[in-house]
């Protein structure tokens, strides 16, 4: 890994409130060029809110965003794309009825004297997909005929056409099979090789450990630690996500290792953990 000295994107002190709900409190996050940062956390931990802050869909209430060491304001999606931040949302936003080339260039088609420059677009599509080693039956096949992994690859490749410096991937491997997940993870590594900063949101800790250079954990809208995935066990990350040494994952393991007939103890632990979580939110 060859990370540069200064982060391409740095967030600090980010807070956001939706009515009575404090979604983010004093969150910071940094991404360096050529680095894959995994953003993990339980449901409701504030991952999506943070992504929306970066993508300009839902600006933060307070906090500072620095882009290449300059303070910037991101208040609308165009601000983010203008800086060089591309976002690939979970629901892909591809048009099934259009072919791969049309999807890659949707909304920014190349034209020659007002007529679509199909040859120019197809040429650039092939170059782009080839450089990412994305395997497709044809760039002229409608996206409906592609596998989930191929569709995700097309969606990610599309975000690269705007020559971004940071790519946000929202759950890129959710709902994918084993081989397709590997395909997408290969693609994430190729983004890193191109010197892009990648922020990867995932629930799958195996994926995270496989590609991430750094794991940033959010819990209840706050930073709950940053880890080096090579030095950290999956249990430690789960512990940071749930905020308790004694969490559902460790209890499940304990149950399967413990002799049968010990379930009464398990249920009493449950209630104490719930209190523990709420208290954890304050500190």
């Amino acid at each position, binding site marked *: 890994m060859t990370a540069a000295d200064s982060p391409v994107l740095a967030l600090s002190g980010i807070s956001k409130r939706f009515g009575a709900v404090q979604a983010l409190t004093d969150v910071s996050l940094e991404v360096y060029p050529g680095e894959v940062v995994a953003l993990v956390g339980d449901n409701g931990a504030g991952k999506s809110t943070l992504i929306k802050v970066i993508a300009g869909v839902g600006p933060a209430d307070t906090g500072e965003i620095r882009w290449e060491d300059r303070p910037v304001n991101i208040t609308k999606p165009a601000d983010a794309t203008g800086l060089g931040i591309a976002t690939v*949302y979970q*629901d*892909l*936003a*591809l*048009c*099934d*009825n*259009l072919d791969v080339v*049309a999807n890659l260039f*949707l*909304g*920014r*088609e190349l*034209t020659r004297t*007002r*007529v*679509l420059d199909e*040859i*120019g677009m*197809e*040429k650039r599509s*092939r*170059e782009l*997909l*080839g*450089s990412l*080693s994305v*395997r*497709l*039956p*044809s*760039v002229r*096949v*409608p996206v*409906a*005929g*592609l*596998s*989930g992994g191929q569709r995700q690859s097309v969606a990610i490749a599309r975000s690269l056409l705007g020559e971004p410096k940071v790519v946000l991937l929202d759950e890129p491997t959710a709902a994918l099979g084993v081989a397709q997940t590997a395909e997408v993870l290969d693609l994430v*590594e*190729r983004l890193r*090789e191109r010197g892009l900063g990648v922020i990867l949101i995932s629930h799958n800790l195996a994926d995270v450990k496989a590609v991430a250079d750094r794991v940033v954990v959010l819990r209840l809208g706050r930073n709950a630690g940053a880890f080096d995935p090579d030095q950290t066990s999956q249990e430690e990350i789960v512990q940071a996500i749930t905020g308790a040494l004694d969490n559902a994952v460790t209890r499940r393991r304990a149950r399967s290792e413990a002799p049968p007939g010990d379930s009464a103890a398990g249920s009493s632990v449950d209630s104490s953990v719930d209190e523990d979580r709420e208290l954890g939110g304050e500190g």
Partner: protein
Amino acid sequence: MTNATIPPPAAGPLAETETRSVWELIKRRVRGGELGAWPVVIGLIVIWVVFQALNDRFLTAQNLSNLALQITAVGMISVGIVLVLLLGEIDLSVGSVAGVCAAALAVLSVRRGWSDVAAIIAALVLGALIGLLQGTIFAKLGVPAFVVTLAGNLGWLGLQLYLLGSEGTINVPTGTITDLMNTKLSQAAGWIVGLIVVALYALAAFSGRARRASAGLPAASLRTDLVRVIGLAAIVVATVAVLNSWQGVPLGLLILVGLVALLDLVLRKTRYGRSIFAVGGNIEAARRAGINVAAIQISVFTLCSTFAALGGILLVSRGFSATQTTGASDVLLLAIAGAVIGGVSLFGGRGSPWGALLGAVVLGSISSGMLLIDVDSSVRYMITAAVLLAAVILDSVSRRGRRSSGRG
């Protein structure tokens, strides 16, 4: 891994799996549920063979020439419907819009003494304004298109009756308006037009090949392009020969085919056309890609009503009059049925204006054949319904095929 180990695109995995032979294309389309126009073409051939067997006057030049004139007006309305269906919406007002524009045309040219050309332009503008109004209510206020245009269906019919007044019928004297549907091209003119069409198509096909080759992209096999050009030439030559042997190529048919070809080019070759397909395929994706969805929707409804107005003008031209029933009865349903039979998906994002022409020919053939073998219109309606149902079932089944193969 460094950049050096990444394979160059030409020798990459894309190039290996790319095969563009006709047979591969057909197989892929059948598997993916993308049959296109083939079921309709085969259906049309069956219909023609059956009617020719039942009555040997069916495939005569005179009957086919009449058929061409019969389908022109409804075919024109159907072209507008194709656009709306591509968005995944529906326009139920086109029959009444055709009727009210026909009435306006007759009132302006006959009662107000406007010149024919001015009256035609006014009728087209009226159609466009109606579409603009309905499209804006749909796109900006979020009222379902089904309801907006259903209200339009009733409302514009009312305006049509109001414009025609107590007499109910306005006869249009011979002039530019009636010339539209009653002019036949001379033999030579018919051949020249046909020649130009084939030459332009061949030029486009082969210059496209050359440009792809010079850009280093795989092109369709030379045989595929040759088959396409020769196929088109055969259709054009047969059509012109048949129509020339009975009075010549009708101007109305030429207008319809010309507009279909123009619209097809706009849909396939411009950003506007691409945007229409995108909105019909995935409206949220289109919006995120920066496409102004509301503007696309409003423009499409405007175009659809303008095509309906043109259809109304052609109805007046053919009938020499605007009446209370112009554009009424089964015009709306035939226009929608034609588009669907022509392979335009009701679910949006798939289809071509050529489908409207093809569907109109199928419906016209059924109607004409039934008249020839002297079948009651009750039976004609039922047969037409069966064909329409078959087309919709095919659409739904192929959509399911696409879905299952899409996740495969």
